[in-house]
């Protein structure tokens, strides 16, 4: 595996490399070099199986991380290729020409994350949603609970008690809160 990393590093600049398990490695590459790396891995290094392509939303850094999980049947190793792309107007090159089923993931990502893959077949078609009007739901700033409460009728009549507050109410109601620090201006 180290040799493989060296070979790829000779080809392009690897941003990061880490080993999670004996049979699972991750490399991080530049967005522009992804296609090159993937086709090299597929055609020359034997990583012929694309297990999945998925996105992770790093809202705080305003980045999407795309992970292309490859598998090599000969050395029996999974290799995750990570790419960070901008979250705003997210767009990524399509790899449907490398793997015939990649369009499925790209279509899913387009719908659930709002990442565009120009040129990918049927990418505009909806995958699991129908008549969806909100922002792509898998983005982290979409609050599913709030949406659910707003849209679907929750059965009313439920209320709960916090043991802490309830015991205070019942046992030491008059034990008032801490005195505030009193200052000159008061």
């Amino acid at each position, binding site marked *: 595996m180290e040799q493989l990393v060296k070979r790829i590093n000779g080809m392009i600049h690897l941003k990061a490399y880490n080993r999670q398990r004996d049979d699972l490695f991750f490399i991080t590459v530049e967005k522009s070099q992804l296609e090159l790396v993937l086709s090299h891995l597929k055609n020359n290094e034997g990583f012929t199986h694309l297990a999945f392509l998925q996105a992770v939303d790093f809202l705080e850094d305003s980045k999407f991380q795309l992970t292309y999980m490859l598998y090599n049947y000969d050395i029996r190793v999974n290799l995750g290729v990570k790419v960070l792309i901008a979250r705003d107007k997210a767009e990524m090159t399509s790899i449907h020409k490398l793997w015939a089923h990649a369009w499925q993931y790209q279509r899913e990502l387009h719908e659930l994350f709002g990442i565009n893959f120009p040129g990918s077949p049927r990418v505009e078609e909806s995958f*699991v949603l*129908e*008549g969806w009007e909100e922002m792509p739901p898998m983005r982290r700033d979409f609050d599913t609970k709030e949406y*659910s409460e707003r849209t*679907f009728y929750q*059965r009313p009549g439920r209320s709960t008690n916090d043991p802490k507050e309830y015991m205070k109410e019942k046992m030491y109601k008059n034990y008032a809160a801490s005195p505030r620090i009193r200052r000159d201006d008061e």
Partner: protein
Amino acid sequence: MNRKHIDEIEKQMKLANEGLPEEERKFFADVIPTRVDPFNKYWEQFLNWARSRSLWMLAFGTGCGSTELRPLMTSRFDMARFGIFPRPTPRQASVFVVGGYASIKTIKRIIRSYEQMQGPKYVIALGSCTINGGMYYDSYNTINRLDYYIPVDVYIAGCMPRPEALIAGFNRLKEKIVAGECEGMNEYTDKFDWFKKNQKEIIKDWNMPDYNW
């Protein structure tokens, strides 16, 4: 069907479909359901007795609860001996078993299938998800309360309910039918506007499959 009758239906549909774009209106509801009142007590009692003994169930596995319908059909539980039999199409079925959670995409099909079923028709709701959202209570794509979209006769608790609980649910449905309490279809007629309003609120895309024939 005479011209007057057709006009009447179109007028009703226009009312029910109000607020929808022109091209979507015809898919919203095929026809306004009509109320069917029992007209003779003894005859109705006989009919109810008969109905309760031949519950034809729509074989539409809407959710994971329908997995337990399969064992029910096998000889171990053998639901045919209770007069329950799966039917492949809504037009032949009288019982709709909603198997748990219903996503937005599915609830649209559930409503359409329900509307296509011949009356009198009954609905059994399985599991927590149909009662108050179940474990998907905070999901953006599943409904929380089935009774807001179609009338439900019997609920069965469980996630998912076992085949035995399903049989018990069918037994309860039979009791209700014999007692003449299963008025779900008339309820749907009476509160049609309310049901449609609720349905409209969640289903944004009313397009139905585009057949070319």
